[in-house]
C-alpha cells in the first residue's frame, strides 16, 4: 500500500499530492508518484534525511536534489511506516542531534574558559596592562575623576582643603610621609595628599597620584598609627595604579557579561548584577594588595599596620547585612583585614623612626578643627 504524501520539487512552487513507494533494489529508493501514476522523483534511500517538523508530520529532504525539495507526510500511521522502512532516518537524526549537542557543549566550554580566564586572569594581567598606560594620561583621567567626585560629594563648593598652606607643619609632615612611603617604589607619580573637609568618613586614591583624606575619618583616628596606616594603604593604591586598573577591568567585565547575556547594550539588571559581583571581586583583591603595601611601609617606619583596620572598623561596622552580601562588597570584611594585617606586622624591625613627631601629629589631628 502506498503512502499519501505532499511533494515539493524545490524548483517550482506548484505542490503536488503524491504517493510514496519504496523500492528495495539498488540500495533502496523512495519513489514519488503523481496522481496519474507518473514518476515525479526517485530519491536514493542513502541520500535521505529528516528536516525538523512539528509533531505528527515528517519532512524529508535529500542530498543531490534542490535544497527546498521536500516530501511531507502527515499522520502517525504513515510516519510509523516510513520510519520502520528507513531506519537510516533515525540514525541520521541522532547524528544531527549529536552534532548540535557537541556544538552546544563546545561553545559552552569555550565560554566557561573565557569567563574563568577573565576572573582569574585579570588580577594577574591588569597590573601589567596598566603599565602600558602613559602616566600623563592617567594623571589626566585622575583629574577628571577627581573633579567629578568633588562635584558629586561637595556640591558647588567642591571639597575645600582643611589647611590650604602647603608649608604648614601638618602638610609638610604628610608630604614627607608620602615621599618616604613611595621611596622604594618606581612609581611615576608624585603623591598629592589632600586632607579635605567632609562629613563622610572616607579616604581614597584616584588615578594618578592624588589621595583624598576626609576630615571625618581624620577626626575618628585616635592614634598616629591609624592615620599613617590608612594613608599608606591609599598610597598603595597609587603605587599599584589600582584606579586605572579598575577602569580597565570594569570595561572588560561589561563586555564579558554582555556577551554571556547577549545584551551588548548592558542596560539589563542582570548585566549590572553580574558585573557588580565580578568587579567587587577585583576590588577586594586590590584592597588586600594595598594593605600589603601598607604593611611593607610599616617595615621602614614605626607604626602598627593593623591600626588601619581598627580605624576602618570604627567608622564602618560590618553588619550581618554586609556579611551576607560579602560577595558584592568592594572591601574585604574588617575582621579578615585585621587578621591579615596583624600577621603581616608580626616581624617588624625595632628602632624605627615614628612616621610623625608628637608636634606633627598634634598639628595633623587638629588641622580640620576650626
Amino acid at each position, binding site marked *: 500500500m502506498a503512502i*499519501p*504524501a*505532499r511533494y*515539493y520539487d*524545490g*524548483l*517550482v*512552487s*506548484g*505542490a503536488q*499530492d503524491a504517493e510514496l513507494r519504496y523500492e528495495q533494489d539498488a540500495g533502496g529508493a523512495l519513489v514519488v508518484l503523481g496522481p496519474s501514476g507518473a514518476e515525479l522523483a526517485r530519491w536514493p534511500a542513502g541520500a535521505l534525511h529528516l*528536516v*525538523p517538523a*512539528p*509533531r*505528527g*508530520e515528517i*519532512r524529508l529532504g535529500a542530498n543531490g536534489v*534542490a*535544497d*527546498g525539495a*521536500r516530501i*511531507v507526510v*502527515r499522520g502517525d500511521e504513515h510516519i510509523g511506516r516510513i520510519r520502520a522502512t528507513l531506519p537510516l532516518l533515525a540514525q541520521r537524526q541522532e547524528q544531527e542531534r549529536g552534532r*548540535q549537542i557537541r*556544538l*552546544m557543549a563546545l*561553545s*559552552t566550554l569555550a*565560554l566557561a574558559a573565557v*569567563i574563568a580566564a577573565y576572573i582569574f586572569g585579570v588580577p594577574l594581567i591588569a597590573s601589567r596592562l596598566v603599565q602600558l598606560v602613559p602616566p600623563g594620561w592617567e594623571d*589626566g*583621567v585622575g583629574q*577628571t575623576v577627581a*573633579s*567629578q567626585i568633588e562635584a558629586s560629594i561637595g556640591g558647588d563648593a567642591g571639597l575645600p582643603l582643611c589647611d590650604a598652606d602647603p608649608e604648614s607643619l601638618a602638610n609638610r609632615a604628610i608630604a614627607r610621609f608620602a615621599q618616604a612611603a613611595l621611596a622604594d617604589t618606581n612609581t611615576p607619580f608624585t603623591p598629592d595628599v589632600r586632607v579635605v573637609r567632609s562629613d563622610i568618613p572616607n579616604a581614597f586614591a584616584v588615578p594618578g597620584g592624588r589621595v583624598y583624606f576626609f576630615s571625618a575619618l581624620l577626626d575618628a583616628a585616635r592614634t598616629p598609627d591609624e592615620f599613617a596606616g590608612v594613608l599608606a594603604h591609599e598610597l598603595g593604591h597609587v603605587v599599584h595604579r589600582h584606579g586605572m586598573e579598575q*577602569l*580597565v577591568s570594569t*570595561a572588560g567585565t*561589561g563586555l564579558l557579561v*554582555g*556577551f*554571556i*547575556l*547577549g*545584551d*551588548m*547594550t548592558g542596560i539589563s*539588571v*542582570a548585566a549590572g*548584577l553580574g558585573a557588580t*559581583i565580578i568587579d567587587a571581586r577585583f576590588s577586594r583583591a586590590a584592597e588586600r594588595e594595598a594593605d600589603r603595601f601598607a604593611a611593607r611601609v610599616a617595615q621602614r617606619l614605626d607604626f602598627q599596620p593593623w591600626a588601619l583596620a581598627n580605624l576602618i572598623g570604627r567608622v564602618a561596622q560590618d*553588619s*550581618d*547585612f554586609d*556579611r*551576607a*552580601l*560579602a*560577595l558584592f562588597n568592594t572591601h574585604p570584611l574588617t575582621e579578615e583585614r585585621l587578621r591579615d594585617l596583624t600577621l603581616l606586622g608580626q616581624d617588624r624591625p625595632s628602632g624605627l623612626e615614628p612616621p610623625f613627631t608628637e608636634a606633627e601629629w598634634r598639628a595633623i589631628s587638629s588641622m580640620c578643627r576650626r
Partner: protein
Amino acid sequence: MWLVPLVTRQKSPTFPIPAPSPNTARIGGSMQTDPNNVTFTGTRWDLAIVLLRGYVLMIPTIGLNRFWLTTRKRRFYWGHTDIGGDALEYSGDARQLLVGFLMALALFLPLYGLFFYLSTQSVETIIIGYGAVALGVWFLYGYAQYRARDFRLSRTLWRGIRFDQGGSALRYALRRFFWSLLNLVSLGLAYPFMAAGLWAYRYRHSWYGDRQFGFTGSWKQLALPYYLTWLAIAALLVAGLVLAQQANLVSAPWEADPAIYGWLVLLVLAGFVLVTFYRAIEISRMFSAIRLGGAALSLRLPALGLLGQYLLFVLGLLACYLVLALGGFIVLGLVAGEAFAGGGFDLDALMASMQSSIATLLAIVTGYLLFFAAFAFVSELVLGYGFWRLMARGAAISGLDSLDGVRARAEDKALAGEGLADALNVGGY
C-alpha cells in the same frame, strides 16, 4: 486524495483554546473562495514545553542555549502555520545565529573601546560622545532590523520555495534614521509618512522565489486614524497636566487626593487602549496592502482581541508572580524560620541566618532568574503566541493559485545569522 490532517490537539487546562475553525480545504482546489486559507494549529501547551525546556537548558549552557531556543521557537511558529494547506518551514539553524552573534561582537569591540575612552574624558566630552554613540546605535538598530528580517525571510520556505529580501540594509537604516529624526522634531506628525515609506521599502524588496512582492499601501490609509489618535492622546496629555496642576502634584505629591492618581491611571489606560486600536488598524491596513503577483493578502486584526491578550498577559503575570512569591516564602521559611518568628518579618534576622555569602548569592541569582524567566515565559506564551494566532486567524490570501508557477532562486547564503539584532536586543519572533 491528500487531505490536510489537523495536528493532534492537546488542551492545556490553564489556557483555554477555542475550537479551531474546521479547515479541511482540499489541496489544489479552488483556494480563492476559501476565506480561511491561513491557519495556525500550534497549541500554547506545545510552545510552553519548548520554552520551559529552553529556559532550563539556558543554565548549564551559560545562556548560549538562547540560539537554540530561538530556532525551536521559530520552527514551532512556522511549522504550525498553514497557507493553503501547506505549512511554512523555518530552515535556519542555531549555528548560524551563534556565528552571527560572534560577528556582531567584532563590531562591538571597537565601540566598547570608544566607550571606555569616553568615560575617562571631561564631562562635556562624555555627554557629547555618548550622545553621538546613542545616535549611532539608533542607526545600527534599523540596520540590524532589516538584516534580521532578511535572515528570517531567506530561511522561510513554502511549498519548497524560499522567500528572500533584497534591497540594502544601509539604505533602509538611513531612511528609518532620518524619518525618525523628522518624526521627533515634528512631535510625531510625520509618522504616517515614515511608516508607509518603511513598509513599502520592506515589501517591495521582498521576494518569494523569483516573484517580487508589491505594496499598494500609502500614508493616506494611515493618516485619518493616526491623526485622530494623535489628537486624542494630546487631549489626554493636556487633561492629565491640568489635573496634576490643579492638585499641586508636582510641588506636593504626597498630599494630593488619591482619587487624582486614580484619574491619572485611567487616563494612561485610555491612552494605551487608543494606541492599541491604532496599532490594529495600521497592521491590518498595511498587511492588506501586500501583493504577490496575482495573490493578495487581506488581514483583519481585531483590536479587542489584542486588548484581550494584554489583559490575559497581566493576569498571567500576576498569577505567575503570586506562585513564585508563595514558593519563595515557603523556601525562606524553611531555610530561615527565625526571620518570620512572631508573625513578623525581620530582615536583619534573615540576613544573619545567611551566614555564607555563597548562599545569599545563590538565593539572589535563583530569585532573579525565576523572576525574569517568568516574565519572558508569560510574555512569549501570551503576547507572542496570541499575536501570531490573531494574525493567522485574521489573514486570508486571494489568488493563491497564481503562485503555482513561481520558480526558486539560489539560496541567499551571504547572510550569517542576525547577530547584530541579537546583540542590540532587537525583538521579534
